[in-house]
């Protein structure tokens, strides 16, 4: 609220803006309370309890003594966790880079093409966003059937057009399985960056492009020098949200490759590792170890997201 508007409002009621604001709190609280309550019960409380769990030694579901940092120490030193944590982190990073390259680029391309097209825009937009409506578990299951080497549509189609040599054990080759998961994930989520980019594109005044054209800019130069810089804020949001989504990914990979990130853990990610450590772990201290992992994941994702958001804010500021 600007001081000017505050004065005008204040002069009417005979109250200072500060008092007025204070009087509005109960009302605001009333409207915020239901969401706040749910948020506290389902997000804040589990987060805090996970943090607390991670500092204790566990025997099954029984909490034993204070363990200090030993659960975290185990994550980094105890085989097989010591090996799995870094491998999963590397896979998440690869997944994020791959998704940015494929999904975000394709999303931008579709948004630009649709922005220019006159016909079929609505239809195509809906078509691209449609996979978004399917649960990742279902999407993973559908693709696992299509990529099936015996009955699957993908290899059958390749053989049908005489490219049988390209038929691959898509989900079974340790070098292919993760890239395949990236592509399936991109297939499902491409509509999301596309929508955000489309909204941003619609917000760029045509005059800018006209001015560029008058100055003799080619279409590519106009896109590269005018459109792209103006998309920075959206690019920032897309990057951060993609990062959060990719580092938390579990369901799609679980449906495609099972809880062990088959084959030979080549698609194992932090989410799957957490699931296994918590629920498929014969170790009595499963709760301690998995909580420590969850805390590490939270710190990593939260930290990087904050740094990235700051970075993009600064880039935005430079635009203005």
């Amino acid at each position, binding site marked *: 609220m600007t001081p000017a508007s505050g004065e005008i409002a204040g002069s009417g009621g005979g109250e200072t803006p500060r008092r007025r604001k204070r009087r509005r709190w*109960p009302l605001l*609280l*009333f409207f915020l*309370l239901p969401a706040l*309550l749910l948020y506290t019960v389902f997000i804040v409380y589990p987060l805090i309890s996970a943090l607390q769990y991670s500092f204790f030694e566990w*025997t*099954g*579901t*029984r909490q034993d003594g204070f363990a200090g940092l030993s659960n975290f120490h185990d994550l980094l030193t*105890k*085989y*097989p*966790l010591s090996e799995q944590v870094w491998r999963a982190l590397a896979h998440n990073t690869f997944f994020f880079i791959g998704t940015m390259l494929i999904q975000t680029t394709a999303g931008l391309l579709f948004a630009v093409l649709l922005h220019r097209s006159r016909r079929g825009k609505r239809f195509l937009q809906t078509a691209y966003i449609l996979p978004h409506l399917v649960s990742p578990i279902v999407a993973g299951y559908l693709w*696992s059937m299509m*990529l*099936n*080497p*015996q*009955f699957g549509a993908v290899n059958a189609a390749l053989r049908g057009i005489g490219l049988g040599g390209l*038929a*691959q*054990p*898509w*989900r*079974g*080759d*340790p070098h292919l399985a993760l890239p395949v998961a990236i592509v399936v994930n991109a297939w499902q989520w491409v509509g999301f960056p596309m929508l955000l980019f489309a909204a941003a594109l619609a917000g760029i005044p045509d005059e800018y492009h006209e001015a560029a054209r008058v100055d003799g800019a080619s279409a590519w130069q106009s896109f590269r020098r005018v459109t792209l810089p103006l998309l920075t804020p959206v690019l920032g949001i897309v990057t951060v949200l993609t990062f959060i989504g990719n580092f938390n990914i579990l369901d799609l990979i679980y449906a495609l*490759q*099972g809880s*062990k990130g*088959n*084959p*030979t*853990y080549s698609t194992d990610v932090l989410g799957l590792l957490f699931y296994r450590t918590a*629920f*498929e*772990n*014969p*170790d*009595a201290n*499963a709760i301690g170890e998995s909580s420590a992992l969850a805390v590490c994941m939270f710190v990593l994702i939260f930290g990087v997201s904050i740094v990235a958001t700051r970075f993009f804010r600064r880039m935005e500021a430079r635009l203005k």
Partner: protein
Amino acid sequence: MRKFCTVIAALSVVVAAPACAPSTKSSGDKVTLTVLSWRPEDTAGYKKIFAPFEKSHPKVKIDFKPIKNTEYATVLPTELKKSQGGPDVVQLKPYGPIQSLISAGNLVPLDGQVDVSKWDPTVLQAAKGKQDGKLYGVPYAMQTLQVLYNKKIFADQGIQPPKTWAEFTALCDKLKQAKITPLSTSGLQPWVLAVDHQIFGATRFGGDDFAKAAVAGTKKFTDPDFVASLDVTAKLKPYYPDKVTAVDYPDAQTLFTSGKAAMYPGGSYEVGPFTTSNPDLQIGFFDAPPAPGAKIDHAVTSGFVDGSYGVNAHSEHKAEATELVKWMATPEFGQLFASTLKQISAVPGTTPGDPLLAQAYQNFKTNGARYMMVVDFGYGNPLGRDQDGEALQKMLGGTSAADAGKLVQKGISAWFKPSGG
């Protein structure tokens, strides 16, 4: 502001109310025992099985409460933690996974209460605490491992179950020429490959003798015999389905039940689902013949205990619950269980109703071997089964058998402490 406090207070009452609701389990003198299980498909069967018990114990009513099997492992610890209103009798996984429940004090020790004097100690091991050696469950079923085959395909091709390894590979070649996948299996799921290894490799590494030596620490998984047994299993790759590393478990099952594959290395636990998905399928089974260089000169049937039933330490009706698991150790329960659910009962002196299972169980009793990676090495992270399967997956991708053996050794030695000679 007072109003909002009231709202909060009201809301918290609403939230807390169900938690404080009194347990209404025993009405009058009748006690309801809740039995928690991961087998929703057996609900009708258990109703039939429990009927005689309810008849002889008129004050007890049994409520069979199944939970989806994929969620059971996450639900069970929470249910056992409830100070009241939890289940009374619970279905338990065998060997390793129950250890954390036992050390957390969630289960009642049953020594001296259940008559298991006639039971084979190796069967009881599945329900014992690794540290205190006490019995915490009554095993209900055994599973055996062998090669299942499609009788019709074998008849059409004019082939018989093989007696030697040479016969076995010859019939695989013949099937392959006839464009039938000889062996259906899943290279994508490590646990399936570990089963294959036990079926085809047990004779090569030496069955129980090797298992005992490995437990004692006198032999390692880098032992030439164990490495060779991995090699035997991986060398069957040409007979596995095309692109086997991408074949998932349900695909492997479908290949066999749809008649596209002639054989399926698997367990007695497959017979029920296979017959359900294709009632016309005529299944037979044979034990894999001794592999080249085998330490055992005859075929073996491997087996393991499927699980047990134990009593919740927080049960409000411990006496009745113990009475029920006591009954579960009697031939009356065993025979009912075997005939109703088409399983091999763990109770001594019972025979499976299904002739196929009866034959498998007989083979196990005469020439048995334990499924070592589950029975002996299923107690830590990583599970022996998973590590063994991962090693085989790597071999299908080109890793040498020696390196695979090293991987198994590395994984298991991360937690396993040999018992000493």
